């Protein structure tokens, strides 16, 4: 037999290969940090720049202002008016109204469907529901916005006899369609990861299927279901295209859900293109972006922690 001469392995290749791989792994981490830095950087002038503070100091954004002599003080968002008004209240209320409707719409449907899917559905029905939900999740938000704008708004107006076609209800329902898949997926996952031993224990004590669900599965999965709801809320608050197209975008302070609303995200989308780089308005929009970022960051972090703990606890019980 002829000799086989093996080449010694290149240590350099191994070294650089590992470095290349690990460098890439830090992109996600760096991206999050960069997003943080570059969004906040542009929001900082609101706190330090006197020129910016003149129109958009913190108290001007939060408290009622008397913009014109002799008129009532009020909250108002009119950045392009002769007297620029940067009150965040109308946007906050708009965001809250739209996401509240979305959650009221999405929680019963998403959690209900998740319970049905995990507790009652036969395998075949599950194989219809799950791809259907994936399909719903795959619909681009601009398409949902389009649908709400063209079809849903008209339908709602005709059936309810509304004054405004585009309002918080309309935007909220469309937003709910985007939230349902999140609530469903997280809740269903939490319920199916409840170990069989738990179910069996309850069944052996004579509980029927629904009692098992109600007394053992649901309580065990509650943290997961609430995490799904919280993550869904994060999505509702951050979602842009749907509210931009379906809400009417009027920045008004009112308690009625039938009024048109303007949300934080839609405000950025609608106004950033027209804004002057470095202007007060520009910084305020980045500040709104910072608020959205911090808010969703906290929501995702807490959802993440809850879900990891839940998984650990349930799987710890299983083994």
């Amino acid at each position, binding site marked *: 037999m002829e000799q086989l001469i093996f080449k010694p*392995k290149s240590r350099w290749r*191994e070294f650089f290969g*590992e470095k290349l*791989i690990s*460098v*890439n*792994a*830090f*992109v*996600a*981490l760096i*991206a*999050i940090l*960069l997003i943080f830095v570059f*969004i906040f950087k*542009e929001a900082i002038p609101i706190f330090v720049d006197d020129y910016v503070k003149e129109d958009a100091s913190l108290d001007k954004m939060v408290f009622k202002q008397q913009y014109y002599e002799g008129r009532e003080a009020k909250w108002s968002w009119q950045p392009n008016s002769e007297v620029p008004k940067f009150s965040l209240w109308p946007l906050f209320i708009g965001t809250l109204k739209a996401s509240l409707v979305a959650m009221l719409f999405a929680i019963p*449907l998403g*959690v*209900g*469907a998740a*319970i*049905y899917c995990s507790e*009652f*559905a036969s395998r075949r029905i599950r194989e219809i*529901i799950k791809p*259907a*939900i*994936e*399909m*719903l999740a*795959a*619909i*681009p*938000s*601009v*398409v949902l*916005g*389009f649908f709400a704008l*063209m079809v849903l708004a008209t339908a709602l107006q005709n059936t309810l006899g509304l004054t405004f076609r585009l309002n918080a209800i309309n935007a909220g329902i469309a937003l709910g369609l985007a939230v349902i898949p999140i609530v469903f997926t997280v809740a269903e996952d939490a319920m199916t990861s409840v170990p069989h031993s738990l179910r069996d224990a309850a069944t052996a004590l004579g509980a029927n299927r*629904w*009692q098992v669900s*109600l007394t053992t599965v649901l309580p065990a999965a509650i943290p997961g279901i609430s995490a799904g709801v919280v993550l869904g809320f*994060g999505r509702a*608050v*951050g*979602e*842009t295209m749907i509210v931009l197209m379906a809400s009417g975008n009027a920045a008004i302070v009112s308690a009625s859900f039938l009024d048109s609303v303007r949300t934080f*995200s839609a405000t*950025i*989308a609608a106004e*950033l*293109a027209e804004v002057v780089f470095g202007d007060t308005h520009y910084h305020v929009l*980045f500040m709104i*972006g910072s608020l*959205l970022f911090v808010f*969703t*960051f906290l*929501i*995702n*972090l807490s959802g993440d922690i809850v879900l990891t703990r839940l998984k650990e606890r349930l799987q710890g019980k299983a083994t």
Partner: protein
Amino acid sequence: MKTIELQPNTNSLEVVGHLKFGRKRRGFIPRGVTFLAVLIILLMLAVIIGNIVIGGTPTISWEFLTHPPEQGMEAGGVFPAIFGTVALVILMVIAVIPIGVFTAIYLQEYTSPKSRITRLIRIAINNLAGVPSIVFGLFGLGFFIAFVGGGLDSLFYPEEGPVWGQPAIIWASLTLALLTLPVVIISTEEALRTIPRELREASYALGGTKLQTIWRIIIPQATPGILTGSILAVSRGAGEVAPIMFTGAAYYLPYLPTKLNDQFMELGYHIYVMATQSPDIEATKPLLYGTVLVLLLLTFSLNSVAILIRSRMRRSRVSAQ
């Protein structure tokens, strides 16, 4: 209340029978109610898709797909938007696949899941997936265009107007790449987890190094997962509008993007513009529906392919075991 009732009667056969009956009925209502939730979701999905398919089908023609918009978007087609979308996601995929795949490999092959750095990266990935898309848009503007692009301009083109420091397809695609990074990572990781330990060991036992094992055994084995992740990323990227509004998408362009610093038209943005800025919505409606249908078909077909590959991958894993 009911437990109080239960106690004195447990010995009576009659009452036990009665109780059983009650139990069954109690299970029926939640079953019905939750099924209603499923029905409503399915119904809404059907209405949305049905409405778009019915509204859009008459518009779709060869001409619609291959011609640019005319008469202020009231006639003509959507070819530049299709072209722009495809170019955008191709650039995005080129950026996101290596980063996503290498990240997944690092997490699965090089570090233990309990190490601090792995946890930190995982938190970053999960949060990246949850950052609102409009914030990505702001970031693209602030970082890619103003910081990177503006930096390049002041270094290499100090005399001219903005070359890189302006909205462009490269910045839009990089922004989308960050947005879709978690999709690729998670999908690749799932594929890596299914590769049995024995295969890695066989490679090591034959004198393969870690890098050789990754390159020759692990990546080929994970290809379906990588493919699934990429397709899902493309589908997601093709549908996002908020991140590209300020980073490169344009209302209307008389030319197709040919350079990395060109602006571009895009299907989703085209829909938004036509739906909200059109002076005569009734006149644009057929074209609008047609465009929505094209976008929906694009994302749905990409998703179906991804789901198909994924389910095949899962099945082959079961049969291998």
